[in-house]
């Protein structure tokens, strides 16, 4: 069991930061952000060319975070890797002591900074989860999947989430939601008779333009009551903003 898995099982409410690795080779600003988050978040979700915008490789960025004392959850997208590359990078990450992954399909290339790139999608997220669990050493990994509760229509999304869980997703991270109502269909789709979600759901959240940092506290309460096991906060990444946000959450 990874430390992140243990924390997810034991802690009442998790606070994660979603971080986009630097758009360049200089690790210094990333390390500064990491230092400011160490001890204040339970983990950080390290994005992988999010929005199809080129950034430093998630494995390296995650390793740098780990060195700075922030437990990383590494996102791997199927957009930029075929099945060889996925397996190779999972092993590369494991060799560096990384065990926690979020396996996603990935935003389409036309949304990003290389719109003419060849999109890979050799596997989809369900197949990538299955690949990870069957890999040599895969049983040591803790893998999760993305959920998009505001996608519509919802029923095919729910069907795919059930497939992700059956293929080895042991937690879900949602795209940013703002209200309990937005999270409700997801929680309902995954709730067993006993009232607990099939797997823990970490709700994405980012402050709106007019939001006071204190809105984070209210969001945590509201989304927590709606069934979220924690929040994955996202920001443009300034250390000052993180400080205000985490202070508002009592971190």
């Amino acid at each position, binding site marked *: 069991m990874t430390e992140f898995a243990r924390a997810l099982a034991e802690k009442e409410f998790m606070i994660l930061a979603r971080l986009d690795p630097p758009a360049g080779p200089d690790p210094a600003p990333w390390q500064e952000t990491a230092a400011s988050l160490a001890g204040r978040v339970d983990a950080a979700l390290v994005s992988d060319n999010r929005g199809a915008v080129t950034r430093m490789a998630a494995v390296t960025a995650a390793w740098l975070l780990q060195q700075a004392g922030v437990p990383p959850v590494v996102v791997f997208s199927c*957009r930029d890797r075929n*099945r060889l590359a996925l397996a190779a990078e999972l092993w590369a990450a494991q060799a560096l002591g990384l065990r926690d992954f979020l396996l996603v*399909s*990935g*935003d*389409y290339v*036309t*949304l990003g900074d290389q719109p003419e790139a060849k*999109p890979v*999608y*050799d*596997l*989809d*997220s*369900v*197949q990538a989860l*299955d*690949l990870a669990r069957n890999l040599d050493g895969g049983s040591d990994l803790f893998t999760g999947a*993305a*959920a*998009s509760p505001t*996608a*519509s*229509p919802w*029923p*095919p*999304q729910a*069907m*795919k989430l*059930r*497939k992700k869980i*059956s*293929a080895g997703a042991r937690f879900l991270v949602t*795209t940013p939601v703002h209200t309990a109502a937005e999270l409700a269909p997801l929680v309902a789709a995954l709730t067993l008779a006993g009232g607990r979600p099939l797997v823990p759901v970490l709700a994405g959240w980012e402050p709106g333009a007019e939001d006071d940092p204190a809105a984070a506290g209210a969001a945590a309460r509201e989304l927590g009551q709606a069934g979220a096991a924690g929040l994955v906060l996202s920001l443009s990444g300034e250390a000052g903003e993180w400080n205000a946000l985490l202070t508002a959450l009592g971190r």
Partner: protein
Amino acid sequence: MIIAERKPFAEIEAACRPYRRLLVVGCGTCVAVCLTGGEKEAHVLASQLDLAAQIAGREQDFAVACLERQCDREFLDTLEEQAEGAEALVSLACGAGIQFLAERFAPLPVLAGVNTTMIGINRQVGLWEEKCRACRDCLLTLTGGVCPVSLCPKGMLNGPCGGSRDGRCETDPERDCAWTLIWNRLEAAGRLEQLTAVVPPRSHGPAGLPGRQSHPAYLRRYEAHD
């Protein structure tokens, strides 16, 4: 059928410049139906090229031929006489036809006059839609006759990605989400349960080689296609 679109005129015209005697070769099947490379379009292109040559003061001659199909050797053979003396051929067939023409008349240069765009259907007069990527592993029985390989930009096999909004694709709000179409088709037919099993990764192995298939009856009769 195979759909193609004519290349930009400037590109074709530039490719023709080094040659004095050219033969524009149309194809009477798919590209004729999609109004790109049939007999009429071959004549139109030849006239345009002729005009451009006159304006530029170049001495060029553009003859026209149209074959029933450029993807069949027996039709290519009928071009022998007309190709005599040509310095280059301009093909308005799909990529398959262009290649077969180039192979048959090598080393004569064959210039591509069209971009082959898709395998599709005729939705309305003058409107064609992509339907098939010739992936060699058809899933249409499972997916209610809607192809996720061709119609989902990500080729997702196990359901929609999270980018679907109001049944439209994250890549383009004008584009239907293939998985919404699949879901709606199977829901209406009461067959949603066939989507519950995880679909394994596709094999891309065979696609690494140019495809070849032979018909067993022909094989027996003619001992052909070794």
